């Protein structure tokens, strides 16, 4: 279903979106500290982070709905942070969809074109094309209140698509949909982005959305960028302890080093990380052996999550659901190649796990300060 052929001339003005030294201070707090990142043309970039990390503020700065306290935004060679929103050559989909309740679907989709005075014939042709593409052709005369959540979402997307602008911003567009619809829309939005070659900037707090849709994930925390990487690299080599503890369900085990005295780790490593699926019980192989007590078991069908207690720390272990009843204590191997080391400031140190994902070296961390 994903066609790579472009039906819109989105590439005519396509260019990277560059943010440099961007800061935003509100009266009582600082929302963003010195944001430096490049969101490449035609790629799907996701701004990911917990609530209040500044990701929506960053999106509003790009859109021009807020003004940065300092810093610059470039689209290609053009500096756009001084421009009003309409002149920035971008479209936006809002969390609440922001559909005009008194206008029908066709008028909602065409709102921007009619405001900008696009000729009537042109409007009709574009409406026809976009409505067909989004599956809205039969709903054009309906008011938003008569649409389901998924249909409203499509109208909001259609309104962004019909503008034929190269950059599309989305602010948690799927958070008001139910789980099944959300999964469908993830696929659809991704396909749409690829088909139209859009430069997408997508804000979400949902790591599943980020991992499944993104070319590039920008993880944010407390107004700062933690890491910029592809989903695979992000998972394989979290740059900070925050990212390690944020990505993955359940996230990486972060164990104080002194809880694992037998481990071979650099002198300045204070925390050792290992993914729950990388902990292997009762097997021979490389890596130190640890004896742990079983505290709790969560059965999830395909998997089961085992909470273990080791000296001074707890450890999560992911086992296949078929494994039978567990004994009171387990002997574990922590494979050397699955270990991640972090220093006292929470930054990643050269780790054995780097070797198992050599491709990650190339463009990890290249854009963030």
């Amino acid at each position, binding site marked *: 279903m994903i066609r790579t052929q472009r039906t819109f001339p989105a590439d005519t003005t396509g260019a990277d979106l560059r943010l440099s030294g961007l800061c935003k201070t509100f009266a009582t707090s600082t929302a963003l500290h010195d944001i430096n990142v490049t969101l490449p043309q035609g790629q799907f970039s996701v701004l990911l982070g917990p609530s209040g990390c500044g990701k929506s503020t960053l999106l509003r700065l790009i859109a*021009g709905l807020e003004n940065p306290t300092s810093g610059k935004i470039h689209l290609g060679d053009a500096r756009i942070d001084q421009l009003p929103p309409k002149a920035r050559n971008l479209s936006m989909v809002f969390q609440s969809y922001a559909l005009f309740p008194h206008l029908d679907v066709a008028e909602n989709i065409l709102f921007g074109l009619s405001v900008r005075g696009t000729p009537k014939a042109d409007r009709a042709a574009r409406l026809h094309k976009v409505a067909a593409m989004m599956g809205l052709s039969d709903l054009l005369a309906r008011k938003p209140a008569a649409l389901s959540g998924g249909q409203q979402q499509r109208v909001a997307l259609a309104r962004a698509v019909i503008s034929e602008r190269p950059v599309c911003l989305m602010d948690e567009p799927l958070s008001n949909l139910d789980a099944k619809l959300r999964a469908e829309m993830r696929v659809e939005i991704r396909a749409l982005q690829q088909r139209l070659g859009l430069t997408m900037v997508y804000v979400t707090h949902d790591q599943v959305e980020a991992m499944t849709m993104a070319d590039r994930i920008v993880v944010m925390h407390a107004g700062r960028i933690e890491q910029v990487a592809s989903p695979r690299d992000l998972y394989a080599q979290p740059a900070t302890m925050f990212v390690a503890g944020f990505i993955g369900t359940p996230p990486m085990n972060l164990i104080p080093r002194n809880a694992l005295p037998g481990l071979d780790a650099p002198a300045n490593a204070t925390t050792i990380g290992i993914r729950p699926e990388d902990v292997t019980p009762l097997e021979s192989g490389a890596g130190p052996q640890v004896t742990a007590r079983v505290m709790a078991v969560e059965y999830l069908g395909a998997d089961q999550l085992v909470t273990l207690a080791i000296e001074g720390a707890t450890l999560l272990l992911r086992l296949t659901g078929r494994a039978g009843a567990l004994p009171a204590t387990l002997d574990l191997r922590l494979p050397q190649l699955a270990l991640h080391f972090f220093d006292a400031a929470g930054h990643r140190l050269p780790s054995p796990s780097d070797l198992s994902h050599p491709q990650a070296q190339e463009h990890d961390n290249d854009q963030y300060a």
Partner: protein
Amino acid sequence: MFRRDWLIAFTFLAPALILLFGFTHYPAIQTLIDSFWTTPRGRRPATFAGLGNYTRMLEDDIFRRAMINNAIYAAITIPTSVALALAMALFVQGRILGRGFLRMAYFTPTVLPLIAVANIWLFFYLPGFGLFEQLRSWAGFSPRNWIGTPDTALYAVTVVTIWSQAGFFMIFYLAALQTIPPSLRDAAAIEGCAPLTFFRRVTWPLIMPTTLFVSVNATINAFRTVDHIFVMTQGGPNNASMLLLYYIYEQGFRFWDTAYASALTVVMVTILALIGIGQFFLLDRKVHYR
């Protein structure tokens, strides 16, 4: 067949029904009946007059004056107070310094009884040293008796009405404006929608239900509130500020011509009903209700 639950239902409804019937429906029907009879005086009982009271209106110059005055009064107070209310609401909705104080200031006239408002304005209009006179004398104009001159009396009381009710309508507009999600403004800004276009294409249609409600209320007020006429002009000078309801009061309670007053009341209620129904049918089609 007598049903027990009907009795119970009527028992529950009785208090409201008796009050509503006794004080609203019965007087209304009685007024309509009275308007076809003559006024009983002393030992002379009422006799059936047919349309006599109504034909009398056609020759009644004061009635005609009151109708014309009321039409002018309504034509000015309704659109002006609605427009002023919207303008004030838009002004105090934005992020401006002293917003709370301004909102309160705009609403204050509503809190005051109209009698008190009229008294305040009597001082404004006072010939010689009222507020307007002071301003006029600084500008070098000759003094003027605003409410004592037939040419200006009606407009003087019109201004008072607008002043007293615009703040009240503003509250409704303010509430309506608050319900418009800010994301609509953001979406429009990205599409390149100028503020005036946004108002015309989004804000105005979305607050249409409020406009309808407010304009129906303004219409009713234009015929219903005459408290300030009592205080300021008593319909004078020479009936220049005579309004329909005040004329009804004069006929009914000053001259005790209750039959004629009843007929006038029927005319007024009919006019109000027609305007109200007309407004709903005319505007309702254009109104988007959420």
